[in-house]
């Protein structure tokens, strides 16, 4: 996942097919990951998110469109697929 997240800010080399760990394209594979909102760009309608269990670190994270889960704030945890938040995890009973 880290490889994918880093590449979200570093333009990917188009000649390198693998786009996730284990040569596993998590976008093709219907994989969604839990991510925590770090900051919100209201003008762009995007939220900068990092993996839910990870501390914020330079170069780790991606811009996510939160429109489908309503307004988000830093600290919210959302389920992300293809840079889109599909569900607000806390709202449907994620374990604390």
């Amino acid at each position, binding site marked *: 996942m880290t490889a994918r997240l880093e590449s979200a800010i570093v333009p990917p080399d188009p*000649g390198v097919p*693998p*786009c996730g760990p284990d040569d596993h394209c998590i976008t093709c*594979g219907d994989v969604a990951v839990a991510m925590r909102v770090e900051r919100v760009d209201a003008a762009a309608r995007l939220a900068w998110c990092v993996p839910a269990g990870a501390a914020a670190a330079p170069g780790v994270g991606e811009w996510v469109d939160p429109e489908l889960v309503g307004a988000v704030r830093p600290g919210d945890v959302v389920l992300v697929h*293809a840079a889109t938040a*599909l*569900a607000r*995890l806390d709202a449907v009973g994620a374990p604390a």
Partner: protein
Amino acid sequence: MRFVDEFRNPELGRALAGEILATVETGRHYKIMEVCGGHTHSIYKYGVDDLLPANVELVHGPGCPVCVIPMGRVDDGIAIAHEPDVIFTCFGDMLRVPGANGTLLDAKAEGADVRMVYSPLDALRIARDNPDRPVVFYAIGFETTAPSTALTLKRAKAEGITNFSCMCNHVTIVPPLRALLDSPDLRLDGFIGPGHVATVVGGRPFEFIPADYGRPVVISGFEPLDLLQSVQMILRQLGDGRCEVENQYARVVPYEGNMAALKVMSEVFELRPHFEWRGLGFISQSALRLSDAYRDLDAEVRYQVPGVRVADPKACQCGEVLKGVIKPWECKVFGSACTPEHAIGTCMVSPEGACAAYYNYGRFARDREVV
């Protein structure tokens, strides 16, 4: 890591495996289909099937979005990629899927500007950065991915980005499941439902399976304990004589789905009358195209595509694998002529494909003790 570690606990896994063993009836053979390619990947990555009794067989379904794209659609994409000045964008796995005229990677080697992206938003960013060049996004995926494409097309329209267009190959999960259930050569006892598709569509679209076909469905998460628990829930339904849609993945999936996602999908997309699925043939109303309101962003309208139907290679048995009729290792070319490095069929291209999952994690035919 929160949301992950608690679902990989080995002690809980052993306990669940024990409960499953206690639930199965001796002498009865259970066939359970995991619909989603992500489940297939997890099952073989974590060896979930090794924890199941031998008379519980997991059958791999058609839920790998890369695997079901027919060769003709790949060729259509390659034709667009070769159009003058076009920047052609798609997800990573799609680059290696063979059409009749090679792969998108081959097209890139021949000079086409083909770029891998991680999301439709990335493709739109490329369009913003290259206003003088047409940028095409080759959209694939089930209902999990379609909302992301829909939101991106809405953004493109709102921002007036006219050099962006989309070749839409989004498919929907219910029609192929109905086609599978109508197939006379397939006997299934239950379904592990696709967790992330259900995040968008909810549980109701799967209610026809117990109602019309008398098979239980358990919507499942993707961690090893999720899958074990889902198998156990299906076996319990069968043992109790119940038949319903249950939601094992309730920590993520609201039963009603995501209404905002469904709304934006209905605004941007409409159902195609027919769409060809690799190995399954044409299935009515099983795929999406851009609606009239977004037709100006439709790459198939902007460019002439061959639109030719291409038969799968004769040696390839992806169709039977996708229908769960044969196991990957029963295919004539599995692991010999067809490998992840030189794939003949799409099931070997994508890691979510059943063949690649078997190949990568060494899951070949082997004897297991019958309970």
